[in-house]
């Protein structure tokens, strides 16, 4: 007899990062998964194939990433909370579907386990691709977990934000954490905060599918119940009708972007470590925050006033927090596992208030704390 596990596996586990992401999705209420095989994201699909039937959800192995991402859009409009998982090269294809989901305000969560081009080594080279991969004006929410526990926690948060803002949300995973086993604590189901999309109370004749105040999100309607909603990628007015009128187009994309930008305090989160009196602050995201934290401890042991600003939300850019760090410290080190990408954002925000130096590594491996300590020493010399 097979043991049918519950939706929320409350308790303490020693779990693979990709599995923790699946458990986070389930705890958030995910009931549809579609994906296409790609390393290092495969364990997400494999565990979903086991778990979805256990909790009464649907699992689809698509014929490609395009099938997967559009099946997500269809299932989400049919009422499901949806997830796909892919890795860098697979994300290329999915950008197309993300563009559609943005324009028709379809909630979905995409897990992107970054890998080096053509290989499966560690990298953060796609931090820009996730933000800018889709064509057209848009805002995206991208969360950057740094541990197995955060893969669980941030995946739940990604679902809540997707539902609340009717927008794709990306969980920026990495080979480092996705393929690592670590302690994971799953709380009791009733202690997990869950947000569900708002469904309209209006009768079919009175429903206006894309009408909302600036900075707000329109309610959704079920399919096949007479609401007669057109979900077109083409420019559409608040009734959903395809219209090309410059003012309607401008207003549509103003609202779609402002619903994110006017709610930054709700969306953007960071953690600070030893920053109170810091003269030098490391700014990092994802798994790179781990050697950074160790390096702060080492530097503090040497009497150096060093701190860490950990970006849990990488997009939208935590401008307020980066600016505060730059005003506090006179030196900023932008640490990341690529040739230097997000550093440009940090320079843009912090550049007028502090000296920003790039600490980059593009060798398919995470920084060691020793490498970051050396960068700190050179900077303070």
């Amino acid at each position, binding site marked *: 007899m097979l043991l049918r596990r519950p939706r929320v596996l409350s308790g303490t586990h020693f779990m693979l990062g990709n599995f923790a992401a699946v458990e986070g999705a389930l705890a958030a209420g995910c009931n549809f998964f579609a994906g296409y095989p790609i390393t290092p994201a495969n364990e997400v699909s494999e565990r979903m194939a086991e778990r979805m*039937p256990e909790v009464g959800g649907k699992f689809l192995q698509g014929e490609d990433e395009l099938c997967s991402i559009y*099946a997500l859009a269809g299932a989400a409009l049919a009422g499901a909370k949806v997830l796909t998982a892919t890795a860098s090269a697979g994300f290329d294809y999915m950008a197309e579907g993300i563009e559609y989901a943005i324009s028709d305000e379809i909630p979905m969560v995409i897990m992107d386990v970054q890998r080096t081009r053509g290989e499966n080594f560690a990298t953060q080279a796609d931090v820009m691709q996730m933000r800018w991969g889709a064509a057209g004006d848009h805002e995206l929410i991208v969360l950057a977990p740094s541990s197995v526990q955060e893969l669980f926690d941030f995946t739940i948060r990604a679902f809540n934000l997707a539902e609340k803002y009717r927008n794709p949300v990306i969980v920026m995973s990495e080979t480092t954490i996705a393929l690592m086993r670590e302690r994971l604590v799953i709380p009791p189901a009733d202690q997990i905060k869950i947000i569900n999309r708002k469904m309209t109370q209006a009768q079919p004749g009175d429903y206006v599918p894309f009408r909302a105040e600036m900075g707000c999100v329109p309610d959704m309607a079920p399919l096949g119940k007479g609401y007669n*909603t057109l979900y077109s990628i083409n420019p559409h007015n608040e009734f959903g009708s395809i219209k090309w009128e410059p003012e309607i187009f401008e207003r549509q994309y103003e609202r779609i972007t402002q619903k994110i930008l006017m709610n930054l305090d709700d969306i953007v989160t960071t953690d600070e470590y030893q920053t109170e009196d810091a003269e030098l602050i490391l700014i990092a995201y994802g798994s790179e925050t781990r050697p950074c934290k160790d390096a702060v401890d080492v530097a503090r042991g040497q009497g150096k006033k060093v701190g860490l600003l950990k970006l849990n939300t990488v997009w939208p850019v935590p401008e307020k927090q980066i600016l505060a760090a730059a005003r506090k410290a006179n030196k900023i080190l932008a640490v990341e596992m690529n040739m230097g990408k997000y550093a440009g954002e940090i320079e843009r925000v912090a550049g007028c208030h502090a000296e920003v130096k790039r600490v980059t590594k593009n060798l398919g491996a995470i920084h060691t704390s020793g490498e970051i300590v050396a960068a700190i020493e050179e900077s303070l010399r």
Partner: protein
Amino acid sequence: MITNPMREALKPNSLPHFFCPGCGAAQVLNFFVRAMDELQIPMSSILGIGGVGCTARIPVYLKLDAMHGIHGRTLPWATGIKLMQPDLKVVIFAGDGDAAAIGGNHLIQAARRNLDVTMIVVNNLNYGMTGGQVAPTTYSTLRTTTTPYGNPEPAFDLVKLVEAAGATFVSRWSTNRPHQSVRAIKKAIQHKGFSFVEIVSQCTTGFGRKAINSASPTKLLDWIKDRSLTISEAEKLSDEDLAGKFVLGDFVDKQAPVFAGSSFLPPEEDE
């Protein structure tokens, strides 16, 4: 003022439509509305899907929930919807480029899975909306805007393609066979499983001017008619003789289990 009772099937203020004068896709819009009316199925109880192209605009005018605007991805949308709402009837309107080129992989996979949707492919033998470029359905030697010296490639037979892939209802008619087209659409809508109806159609603006040196809809309809034959007539001809011909009729009508997802608990565990 008397209005056509079929106007009830269209969204208010959706006319005038954007089809060129004499376009076959507009006829197929008519065929579909008629089929739904004869079946007495309320329009707003179903979901319409169009990708990109002239045919893809058909559901935009209909009084129903619809998805529109992504080239070739109609079947993936439908797959997600049908897994969550298996009782919702889904009808896809696709041009030949949408269905057979950019969406070709989705087409054969959906047919293989026997996804429970109806797909109406308006085959006008070219990319009409973008200006009459060659398509995988354009017969060899025909001139288009991207085959100015004649098409060197052979064409897909979409009926054979989806039949081989596993479609459980397959039919091909043309815009000059309105009654047969409506009948086939009705059968397809009532069919449980992947039902595929190809309607060979005239594209005056894109195809006609290049391929037959005429933008006249009646000349194009005659051109299609002259190349059309029934299944029994086609049986007497060789593959060479059938090249460049349209074999019309109902090809497949059978039952098979429909797609419901890629993973299930073992039967004894399934409550």
